[in-house]
């Protein structure tokens, strides 16, 4: 091509070159879009599958749990801590000064207010029992477990301490223990998820 003599050789070449650059660019861009489209279903396949999502709720019977006792149930493969708190624990959680909290949140916002039949349920604390640091299960469900300095839960992995409302008070964890979505289906049953 370059050898073909042409009266407009100079202008032709440059004009052509620009066109070629443009073609290469658009072709490249199209190939990129195509590659992304092809990758999308592959990447998306690694997200939770339909059957995993279907297992996402659990019913719990609370009638056997007495004041000061705890229950651990499994929800989405994770432990959920259910604790029927004593009045002393509730008072302790409610009088803690907000300025002491790393992730400030009122105890009232962590339990069900006006749940079943418009009643408050401050004694029932329901939380995902997974440390917000790196995912260990904190100790404190059994009476013989260490409860940390704040009458709550203690994570043995890196020493995070949670208070009687499950809020982070000390240690490397950044957030309070997560409260999962749940409802009272009647006075003695909850549905998590």
């Amino acid at each position: 091509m370059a050898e073909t003599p042409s009266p407009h050789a100079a202008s032709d070449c440059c004009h052509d070159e620009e066109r070629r650059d443009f073609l290469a660019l658009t072709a490249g861009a199209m190939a990129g879009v195509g590659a992304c489209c092809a990758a999308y279903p592959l990447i998306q396949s690694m997200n939770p599958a339909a059957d995993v999502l279907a297992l996402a709720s659990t019913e719990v019977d609370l009638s056997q749990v007495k004041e000061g006792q705890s229950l651990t149930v499994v929800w989405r493969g994770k432990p959920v801590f259910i604790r029927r708190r004593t009045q002393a624990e509730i008072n302790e959680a409610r009088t803690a000064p907000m300025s002491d909290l790393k992730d400030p949140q009122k105890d009232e916002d962590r339990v069900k207010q006006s749940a079943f039949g418009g009643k408050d349920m401050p004694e029932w604390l329901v939380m995902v029992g997974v440390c917000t640091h790196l995912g260990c299960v904190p100790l404190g469900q059994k009476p013989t477990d260490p409860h940390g300095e704040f009458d709550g839960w203690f994570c043995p992995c890196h020493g995070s301490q949670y208070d009687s409302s499950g809020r982070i008070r000390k240690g490397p964890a950044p957030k309070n223990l997560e409260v999962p979505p749940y409802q009272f289906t009647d006075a003695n049953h909850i549905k998590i998820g």
Partner: protein
Amino acid sequence: MSHGSPSSFKNPVINWIDTRLPIFTMLQKEYGTFPTPKNFNYLWSFGGIAMVMLTTMILTGIFLAMYYTPSTGHAFDSVERIMRDVNYGWLIRYIHMNGASLFFIAVYVHIFRGVYYGSYKAPRELLWILGVVILLLMMATAFMGYVLPWGQMSFWGATVITNLFSAIPVVGDKIVTWLWGGFSVDNPTLNRFFALHYLLPFVIFAVVFLHVAALHVSGSNNPTGIEPQTDKDTVPFHPYYTAKDCFALVLFLIFYALIVFYAPNALGDPDNYIPANPMVTPAHIVPEWYFLPFYAILRSFVWDIHIPFTSVVLISSKLGGVLLMFGSIVMLLLLPWLDRSKVRSAVFRPIYKKVFWLFVLDCLILGYIGGKPPEAPYVMIGQFATAFYFAFFLILSPLLPKYEKILPLPKSISEAVLKKS
């Protein structure tokens, strides 16, 4: 490679193949007559040893995969079946399990060798970077392999490490769910880890190929750090270094065999012989020994950094730890540009030589701290050791050359060798 010219191997079959596909000419050139500095010490054998370890891992791994079941209900039992019922299953598994440790030993020696003799400096920067990529791939592979037996440490190690990604702002939790394929480490996680654990060694193999290809462009560094100038400075790779490397390899394999046969579980955690239980965290989660220094760096960051004069957390201690840990590898990647010294080898750098050994000691301290619970005084020691780790790369490497008096360099490799003898 001679283009078009007939190959001259005695064996007619080899000749026939070589004229059509000159692999034998290539092998001859790259591993036979390849000119190699004549002053290697035994530290230069660890690259080849690492290669043998990679091959061993792939070979034993393929056979283990024939008997292993990647499912949360069966994984632990299938591993125990390999140990008790499969013919020589115990041997293959112990070779594979301890092979990971030995592979890391070889690679760590190989890396420290490079740091000591300045093997990362121009023109070998890309060669070095490919090496760091291999290290990263090895870490990912080893981590996923450790999850497969589905013991307590498998499960909780996987939980803690995958949770590191939740430190990423905004999308962190989404990424973790995506990695798990669920809402906790569970069957989908185990399945994909098995698939990737099988895949990644072959990726490593490919990167090793590039690593070696790059090495054969620049040629090897050597203990003097001076490039070979004449034929007097080099010897053909075969038989000189094939023989030397074989001897080193045999010693290494004896050490390996001692561990496999006499202390196969010494390097592992006994908790991993308890089946995984998502409801109970072991009292003390520790990664395998080869990750301990990085684990110590991760845990040394215990502060929240706030935007000044507000209570808004800019970098939480969790994110900070993760950044530091990945930063420790990034330091290795940047080392060719951080070190400003014109002289490669520590042999001629009296201060750097001392600093290097302090750095080695520092890595050992980090490893020790990584295995200890996060309590006083370990946390503090870990923080100082982390600070020194980064100071080595960010302060000492760039600044030392300004103040250091370099010892007189020999004119050539052969001069250096002759002077010694």
